[in-house]
């Protein structure tokens, strides 16, 4: 899950990282008032889950309240990488003498958190990583003990411009690691951490991505989710513990297991069709999950056929069959449904489906081919 800069900054602040004053505005008028009350030059920054805000015109300096209003007026409603900006952060404008990159992410290859610092701050770090990787200093944090003081110092002395700012930064790095760990983040970044002309050190930008698996035990973080930033069905799917990603095609899929679900999408494409979604009903599925899955897919008006591809392991075929029967109970399904059931309790599942209008298929290839055909035949049956 992504959170906004202003939310990440609040988390940083609670962990002792120096973050300049800032407040959120949803209208130009609010931005004006905030800037007026603050009384010093501000920066108005788009709050949106997309990188490259600066280049897209989503960050503007404002000398006073009027300018802040104008800037907010331009930014609010702007589209950045397909996402509409609905909030801006109005924050103190600071004198920058030096900019440093500081970040920590969960590194798959390493199997743990990787702390990174670079004197090349304030710019796209992925570009630095590609073009001048030697400018990034990396350190594998032991997740059992966190970032220790001396480790933070060793990193800080490599990138900060002088001893005083290094000592100040060395106090901030462990706070950033702690913010990362205490939030179950997969990424926490300060880009840039700046040194002012007076030698003060401040985090003037903040980015955090959260490990979805950690949200259960971090309700205060889960509450930061921006419902505007996702399709409503995705929220409903999540609440039912379904993995659902909306796509643009017309073949709806309900699959158990992420790998099989991806392979099903790939096979639809392979056979000339277009998947309408990724949908994994997961292991240990209950009939309720299946009915929710069908309701979500029915709600997608692009969908012309539905494909169930179930290979039972921990998911029992009878549970899935019961879910399908439950969902189509009373009225015939509005669109054709192809069902392929194999694995645990396969026989029981087939029996339950026996007396319905559903279209059976013996293999995944057959099921996909039928579903693709049906989606292309308006109102037709295979």
């Amino acid at each position, binding site marked *: 899950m992504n959170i906004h800069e202003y939310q990440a900054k609040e988390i940083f602040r609670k962990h002792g990282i120096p973050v300049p004053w800032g407040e959120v505005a949803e209208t130009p008028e609010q931005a004006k008032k905030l800037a007026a009350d603050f009384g010093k030059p501000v920066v108005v920054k788009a709050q949106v889950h997309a990188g490259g805000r600066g280049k897209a015109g989503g960050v503007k300096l404002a000398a006073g309240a009027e300018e802040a209003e104008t800037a907010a007026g331009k930014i609010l409603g702007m589209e950045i990488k397909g996402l509409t900006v609905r909030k801006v952060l109005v924050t103190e404008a600071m004198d920058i003498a030096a900019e440093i990159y500081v970040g920590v992410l969960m590194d798959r290859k390493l199997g743990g958190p990787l702390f990174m610092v670079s004197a090349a701050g304030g710019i796209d770090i992925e570009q630095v990583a590609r073009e001048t990787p030697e400018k990034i200093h990396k350190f594998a944090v032991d997740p059992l003990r966190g970032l220790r003081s001396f480790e933070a110092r060793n990193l800080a002395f490599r990138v900060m411009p002088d001893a005083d700012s290094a000592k100040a930064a060395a106090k901030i790095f462990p706070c950033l690691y702690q913010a990362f760990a205490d939030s179950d983040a997969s990424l926490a970044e300060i880009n840039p951490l700046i040194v002012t002309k007076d030698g003060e050190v401040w985090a003037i930008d903040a980015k955090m991505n959260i490990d979805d*698996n950690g949200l259960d035990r971090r309700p205060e973080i889960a509450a930061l989710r921006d419902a505007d930033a996702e399709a409503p069905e995705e929220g409903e799917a999540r609440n039912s513990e379904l993995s659902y990603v909306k796509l643009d095609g017309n073949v709806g899929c309900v699959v158990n297991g992420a790998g099989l679900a991806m392979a099903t999408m790939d096979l639809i494409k392979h056979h000339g069709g277009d998947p309408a979604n990724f949908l994994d009903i997961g292991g240990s599925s209950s009939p309720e999950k299946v009915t929710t899955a069908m309701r979500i897919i029915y709600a997608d008006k692009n969908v012309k056929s539905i494909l169930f591809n179930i290979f039972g392991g921990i998911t029992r075929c009878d549970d899935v069959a019961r879910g399908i029967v439950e969902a189509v109970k009373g009225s015939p399904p509005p669109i054709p449904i192809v069902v392929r059931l194999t694995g645990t309790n396969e026989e029981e599942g087939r029996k339950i489906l026996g007396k319905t209008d559903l279209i059976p298929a013996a293999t995944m290839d057959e099921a996909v081919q039928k579903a693709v055909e049906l989606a292309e035949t308006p109102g037709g049956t295979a």
Partner: protein
Amino acid sequence: MSILIDGKTKVVVQGATGRDGSFHTKQMLDYGTDVVAGVTPGKAGERIHGVPVFNSVEDAVNETGADTSILFVPHRFAVDAVNEAAAAGISLVVCVSEGIPILDMARVMKDLKNNSATRMIGPNSPGLISPGKSKVGIIPGQIMDQGNVGVVSRSGTLTYEVAHHLSHAGFGQSTVIGIGGDPIIGTGFIDVLRLFEADPETELVVLIGEIGGTDEEEAARFIKEKMSKPVVAFIAGQTAPPGRRMGHAGAIVSGGKGTAKEKIEAFRDVNVEVADIPSRIVDLVKAKLS
């Protein structure tokens, strides 16, 4: 031969008396797995499908000599269960649970490394099966046949799909193992490839990868440098949009990294053939083994 588990493997089921634990204990017993113990704190003295239940893994190990454990506990108890198995001297622990925070897994891995000789498979793994010998996990046994193909995969059901085709075509399996769909897992592709390479029974390996991370790319390098046995592959997620997590916590293309295209190229660069659809893996296997 086979890898990791065989007919001598003695299994303890952690969370044996729960719904899934009970169901799969029965399934494993029916398959012929030597399930010697169940563990549910507070239920010592009971039996589940005839298997004695203990309060702790330590008690189970002491009383039954169990050497392998499988967890059917809710994900918030999984870390404690893995640690308990490791502390009791279990050598292989299979973690089926999905949804464990990644940082917890990073900590578990570091702790296992510091304090034990325990190997973990998973989390978010269907476990493994050495057909005709033992299964530890939730892989449906009826689709597997004993044979000489090793199968390793980040997925569960996609693995069943592939194994199903292999069995139908007469290619039995030495061991089929799902290493799990999370970003940080106990046993990776390279660990399993090394075991298959050393296993006399295994003649060929089917590797089933998916988008996200660079494990497949590293596996390709390993195959080139260290493997004498043929490997064929399939990669899921060619149509997955970037930046979106495809179910598995590990299945996400981020920062332009971890695409199916890169992985397929990495394999083809080292002469590992990659099937375009799952059912065609059988054709690749057939070509290599005949």
